[in-house]
């Protein structure tokens, strides 16, 4: 079991307490391609932030690869994020004053990898994603799809066990959305990386093998979707 959540609660206290996650129990196996679906305000992003150790939870247990993620120091949390998790965000979150290749290199900088080595690796991953020609371009010189592929390359470069994607297609047109989802699917199938996608779009969720519905802070139905028939829309081919 790669990820195991037991009775996780999270309350935000901005003036008045807001109980966002109300006892989440969830298990995700190694190599799964899962989506977490829910309307806005359902707590899906909060759940993803807890999974990504970007945020902490109040009660319950979160086991990641056999380790209890609880009361970590910022340094430890940063180290886990760096080595085990790759993030893909809706708004790409590339550093605007760094070129594509420099952005991809950055996680390795924090691992203490030498400049030459990390440049080689970053170029390798950019090549894998078909961005070799764009290596020395700045984010504002690239299209949304290209930016998201750079972000995916950055997420992959540390060879993480999990990729957490928060609305990865939210800022992309439908054609590019399809490409990005195909890319994630390929990474899951070929490299065996566990991928968790948070989305509110049925079409995006349909591309994953398992759909976890979350509503009002509680896990609802968990759909097996190996045949990708959960949704009959036409957005995805």
């Amino acid at each position, binding site marked *: 079991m790669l990820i195991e959540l037991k009775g996780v609660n999270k309350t935000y206290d901005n003036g008045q307490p807001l109980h966002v996650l109300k006892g989440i129990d969830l298990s995700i196996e190694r190599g799964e391609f899962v989506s977490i679906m829910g309307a806005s305000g359902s707590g899906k992003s909060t759940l993803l*932030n807890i999974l*990504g150790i*970007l*945020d902490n939870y109040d009660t319950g247990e979160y086991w990641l690869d056999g380790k209890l993620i609880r009361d970590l120091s*910022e*340094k430890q949390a*940063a*180290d886990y*994020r*760096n*080595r085990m998790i790759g*993030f893909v*965000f809706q708004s790409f*979150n*590339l*550093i605007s*004053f*760094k070129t594509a290749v*420099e952005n991809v290199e*950055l*996680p390795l*900088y*924090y*691992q*203490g990898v*030498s*400049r030459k080595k990390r440049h080689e690796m970053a170029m390798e991953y950019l090549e894998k994603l078909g961005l070799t020609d764009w290596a020395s371009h700045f984010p504002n010189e690239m299209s949304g799809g290209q930016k998201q592929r750079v972000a995916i390359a*950055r997420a992959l470069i*540390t060879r993480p066990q999990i990729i957490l994607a928060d609305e990865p297609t939210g800022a992309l047109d439908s054609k590019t959305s399809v490409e990005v989802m195909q890319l994630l699917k390929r990474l899951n199938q070929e490299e065996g990386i566990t991928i968790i996608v948070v989305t509110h779009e049925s079409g995006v969720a349909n591309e994953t093998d398992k759909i976890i519905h979350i509503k009002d802070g509680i896990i609802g139905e968990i759909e097996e979707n190996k045949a990708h028939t959960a949704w009959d829309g036409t957005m995805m081919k």
Partner: protein
Amino acid sequence: MTELFHEIAGNLRNNKLRTVLTGFAVSWGIFLLICLLGAGNGLMNSFLGNMADYIFQSVSVEGWRTSKPYAGYQEGREIELDESDVTYTEGPRWSPTVGDVTRRTASTGVTFSLDGNTVAGQISGVMPEYKDQEKLKMYAGRFLNPDDLKERRKVVVLSLAQAKELLPKDPDAIVGRWVNAGAVSFRVVGIYHTDESDMYRTCPIPYTAYKVIYDTSDRIESITFTLNGPETRDEYEAFEKEYAGAMRLRHDVAPDDWRGIWIRNGYTDNMEMNDAQRIIRTFLWILGLLTLVSGIVGVSNIMLIAVKERTHEFGIRKAIGASPAEILKLIIAESVTITALFGYIGMFLGMIACQIMDKTVGQEAVDIGITKIQMLVNPTVGLDVALEATILLIVAGTIAGAIPAWKAARVKPIEALRAE
């Protein structure tokens, strides 16, 4: 370390505007500070230099005419000091306070002549210390020395104005020549500077020679001595009262008759000058520190804004694995690099400005009638002070930048990512 340097170099290169703005604040602060300190130093040097010409650090005693009847004598009696007064002043009663004692004879008016040129002068027998007591500045040759006194040499020191009268074409060449003064000839050993007022018509010769040539009596014109000791004005005044009283008693002068025996006090004037110097220095330091504070505020202000602006970037860095320490290290290293680089530029420009000030305003003199004074004398700052100020600004700027950096480093990544 090299990795960090490359990271910083990239960050600074890709954020040119921010780098230049921050750097400008630093450069400007240091530049102003150096200019201010330089001008301040120049003013102080000028003030002290001009003052020093009119300050005598010693005490002189002269016999004048009594203004009160005392001990059976009527007022208006001429008082003359003699060798016994010197011996008395050097004596055990005053020895703890009185330092070196020198004396000067009265003067005799003569006409010097050389190669058909003539000039008037007042020959006076003095001791080698006279040069420092009267702040004479040598133009050529030397002043009288102890051997001149011991051997009663017939040597004289002339003023530059006199030398020019006697040898208009080449006044310097008069050193070593013999000049006639009535029936006596003197060899000129030196020339001293005269100021615009041409007040100095006095021509010093060895005290012992004067006693042989002009006045074989014991009489002397004045006694001048230095003091060891009195730290305060009150202490000095107590000493002066006691000493003057004793001297006046020796000559049957009323103890409070300052005209009978007159005391010229250069000692407390000197104290006043030291006070003035201290006040100017304190004032300069306060101004300098205030300038420095404004520089520091400027730097920390920009750091604060820069750090706030970059919260999102730090959020990204944290999400992909930067620890708070890494963020802190990055910000501080960046600010040290900027402040050091631009601080150095500011310091360099400031030093150049000081040099320009020295070459322009520093060379201008203001004529105040009796003499010319320079407004700024050597308005420069030592490299040590400049470096210290720069290092201080770097350290202070870094500490000021470290506070927002510390805050940024502690923001939770999820909050930092939300910031826009």
